[in-house]
């Protein structure tokens, strides 16, 4: 039975009893990293996101000081001006997070994934971890490049103040951008796992990030303020504020609020993943 058999000139090894080693979470992580690394579209998306965020921020910074019609922003909140392009970056990270999961559903790859790793929560954890590390590291590099580019633009216009990393809360805001970006990617990721369709997940991501906060603007102030205060993406963005805003949580309470929202979404995603047919 263990004699090698030749099938059309190729040897088939016979192993009537399974001999394989039991895979661990580390193996699932390795596999998910390979999946992330071997898609050119992912790399292109990440590269384009970095360029757009840094470029757009630089452009807005320049416009806000070079134009004679500049507002007061550049005086009151120069870091906010420097980081102005990140809203688009957050959306891009949400989309990337969603695609990590929905790609597998739309291509049918998910079946192969769950065949290899029937523990679906382990798959979710490994995917989420790889995504977090990739987005976290990239946005960490991005946020420093963004800061120094913006700083350079502002230095060219002596009439305007330039934030320094040593200033109150500036380093926190610069570093915080990497954390907020990672949490945003995880929102898209969890929404992708819940909705399983790329278009649906992207729509939901846009809704969470942009549309619902806009709708909030239409509410009467007495309702709007508390909702806006706790709306996760609004609350999370307080980490990037150098001075505390009115009707907003503090930086860390806000980040905690966002993190809690992400955690809830991930739990829902995990439960559904286990309950539903693949």
């Amino acid at each position: 039975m263990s004699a090698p058999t030749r099938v059309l000139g190729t040897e088939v090894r016979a192993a009537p009893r399974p001999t394989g080693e039991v895979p661990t979470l580390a193996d699932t992580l390795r596999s998910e990293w390979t999946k992330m690394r071997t898609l050119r579209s992912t790399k292109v998306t990440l590269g384009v996101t970095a360029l757009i965020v840094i470029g757009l921020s630089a452009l807005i910074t320049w416009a806000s000081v070079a134009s004679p019609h500049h507002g007061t922003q550049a005086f009151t909140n120069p870091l906010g001006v420097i980081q102005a392009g990140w809203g688009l970056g957050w959306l891009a990270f949400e989309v990337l997070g969603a695609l990590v999961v929905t790609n597998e559903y739309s291509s049918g790859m998910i079946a192969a994934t769950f065949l290899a790793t029937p523990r679906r929560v382990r798959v979710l954890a490994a995917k989420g971890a790889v995504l977090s590390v990739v987005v976290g590291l990239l946005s960490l590099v991005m946020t420093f490049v963004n800061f120094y580019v913006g700083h350079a633009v502002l230095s060219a216009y002596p009439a305007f103040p330039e934030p320094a990393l040593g200033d109150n809360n500036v380093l926190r805001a610069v570093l915080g951008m990497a954390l907020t970006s990672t949490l945003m990617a995880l929102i898209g990721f969890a929404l992708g796992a819940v909705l399983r369709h790329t278009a649906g997940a992207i729509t939901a991501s846009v809704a969470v990030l942009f549309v619902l906060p806009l709708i909030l603007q239409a509410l009467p102030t007495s309702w709007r303020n508390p909702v806006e205060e706790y709306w996760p993406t609004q609350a999370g963005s307080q980490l990037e504020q150098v001075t505390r805003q009115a009707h907003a949580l503090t930086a860390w309470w806000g980040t905690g609020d966002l993190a809690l929202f992400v955690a809830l979404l991930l739990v829902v995603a995990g439960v559904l993943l286990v309950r539903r047919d693949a």
Partner: protein
Amino acid sequence: MIQVRNLTKRFGAKTAVNNLSFDVQPGLVTGFLGPNGAGKTTTLRAIVGLVRPDAGAVTVNGTNYHDILAPTHEVGALLEAKAYHPGRRARDHLVALAQASRIPNRRVDEVLGLVGLADAGKRKAGTFSLGMAQRLGIAAALLGDPPVLLLDEPVNGLDPEGIVWVRTLMQALAAEGRTVLVSSHLMSEMALTATHVVVIGRGKLIADSSIEELVRASSGSRVRLRTPLAGALVPHLLAAGGTVQPGDDGALMVSGLEPDAVGDIAFKAQAPVHELARLEASLEEAFMELTQEDSEFRAQGVTGAPAARQGWGAAARGGADGAGAPAGTGTGGQAGAWPGAPAGDGAPAGTSAPPAQGWPAARQGWSGPA
């Protein structure tokens, strides 16, 4: 060894698999047959835990798939041909799957060679033809060198050479003592590949037997008689309780009578006999007969096999049937019941073809009393 026990799966109001039980034995290729929508894919997906049953259980070598510690080394499955991201290179796809199962990359190159994709490993899987996609899927299934293999329509999209290759591979794997379950709606393909068949229709078990038994049990056995005096002989055959239908080339296809009886009647009627043979039902016919009640999608207005077979039938439920009987043998009328069947092998779509198809073509010749 796969054990399916009282498996039931519903999708909303639709019961895809209905209280299904069967075993799949190691050491042979088991065909898993049924018309479109019979529930084959759903059953296979339930075996590997992709679909969660509403009732019943499935075990592989005694264990639920979710509880197998190293599942890729225990079960290999080809479920969908294109279960990969089109933008990823074929080899990278396999590497990712191998890593998840703690399988070294060496094995990836081995299976790529085994399925004949050694030179295509660097190509994006999205550029693959359907046949290459099937091969990549088979490579993935073989990664863990598993003793149990599930293949959902593996020959779909393969060229004749590829079909022979899959057939040979499956038989070789079974010969090594592995359990091989392969679904198809091409009876003719199964006839060449499988030793045992499990037939389902509308989610229920219809037959679970060896191919030989299936053919033997089929009521489709007939006697073929060629005589220049066919017209004169028919009334005698009908009178003796037979059912007669025109065969191709003017022969008479008689059912309900044994060959010796037909010969005796011809002798008494003084009709010269030029040919007299017993035709056993082909597997295709046996399959049609089994599943005609259960075929989910059938073309409207197409006469079922029994009606078509009536010919100048004694039952004579409607004389019109005779005129409407197709020129071919019985199954011709059923061809339309397979709207979704791939044209590839010509198997179900062709008009009848037991002799042309050749298998298990009828022990032709005189069947003398044993």
